[in-house]
């Protein structure tokens, strides 16, 4: 994805690194819980050896927790795998619902307790042709901003609307004003331009729309839109 200016390579790498760190943090939490549950089983065993009655309900709770965390770990690894493969093709067919779902999930790995409701239309064709990695970056930045804007106890909604001209509108509503940073940042705006997307943020109506074309222009064209002119 390098157009020779270095800009894209760095921004893309920063995003890849950030998501990898976030996923590893999530996996570490999973491992920490499993480790504590295993330790608890050991504690119970020692107590039983000392002649104290074995508490079956505690054993049951503990083994259920271990299984739940293993499922959570597998689920996280599956998402990591999908994210890692998003750099395989510069441009390809993607299902927008899957990408938005993945990014909401990954953004949730940050220490965020706010809630998000995602209601994609069930009957519409939400397939587009785009650069999956860049689109993920754009949606991730938007979701994180939305989480920040509503604060730890807030809630916002995300939807997808297919437009008459074939483009798709990812709509964020119920946003708040608690985010301390400006959105979109310059890098995010450039990212959007590179895939032909448009961001419209209306703070008064607490709404944000990201419109993405049904089919992105050629990659060469996209790169020329973000290329930094030589000094």
């Amino acid at each position, binding site marked *: 994805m390098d157009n020779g200016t270095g800009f894209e390579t760095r921004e893309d790498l920063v995003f890849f690194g950030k998501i990898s760190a976030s996923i590893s943090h999530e996996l570490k939490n999973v491992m920490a819980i499993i480790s*504590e549950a295993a330790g608890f089983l050991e504690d119970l065993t020692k107590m039983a050896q000392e002649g104290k009655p074995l508490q079956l309900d505690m054993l049951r709770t503990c083994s259920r927790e271990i299984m739940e965390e293993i499922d959570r770990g597998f689920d996280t690894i599956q998402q990591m795998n999908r994210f890692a493969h998003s750099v395989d093709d510069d441009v390809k067919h993607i299902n927008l619902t899957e990408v938005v779902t993945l990014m909401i999930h990954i953004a949730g790995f940050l*220490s965020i307790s706010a809630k998000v409701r995602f209601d994609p239309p069930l009957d519409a064709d939400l397939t587009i042709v785009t650069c999956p990695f860049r689109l993920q970056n754009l949606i991730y930045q938007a979701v994180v901003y939305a989480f920040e804007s509503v604060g730890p106890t807030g809630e916002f909604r995300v939807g997808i609307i297919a437009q008459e001209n074939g483009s798709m509108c990812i709509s964020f509503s119920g946003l708040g004003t608690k985010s301390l940073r400006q959105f979109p940042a310059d890098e995010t705006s450039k990212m959007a331009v590179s895939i032909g997307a448009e961001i419209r943020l209306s703070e008064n109506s607490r709404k944000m729309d990201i419109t993405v074309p049904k089919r992105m222009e050629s990659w060469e064209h996209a790169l020329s839109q973000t290329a930094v002119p030589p000094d």
Partner: protein
Amino acid sequence: MEDEQKIRILLVDDEVKFLESIARRLELRNFKVMTATSGEESIAAAKKNLFDVAVLDLQMPGLDGAQVLKRLKERHKYLEIIMLTGHATVETAVECTKLGAFQYLEKPYAFDKLIESIKDAYKARLKRKFEHNEKRYEEIQKLSLGSSPFGILKALARLDNGEK
């Protein structure tokens, strides 16, 4: 063991399952544990209850661990605080130490290490309280030698001011 003889721990983490796992293991080892799932909740809990040691997760939504550490240390000067983190960095370790953290542990850690840290933190709390009390006792002794009864009372009130 009677409840009043146990070390009182405030355990704070937004990862609820982790919090519950640690709490029940600590309780099995005869610690008295209260849990909080956010910084705000932990500050409220510390206001209402007396704790010897707090174990705080660094990364939490809302008030993060460092902010909570700062506030708890301002309001409860003898409370010793152990910080937990998923990803330790030198910068955050230095920041937490500057803010008064007793220790900084990276997850996942050996449970015995946590127990050892809590016991050390408790000893440090007792030592600081003892030294402070001893200093106060010396001051009171000095006062009783040279002041009038009213002067002694006034000075005692001054010495007692702000104690928690």
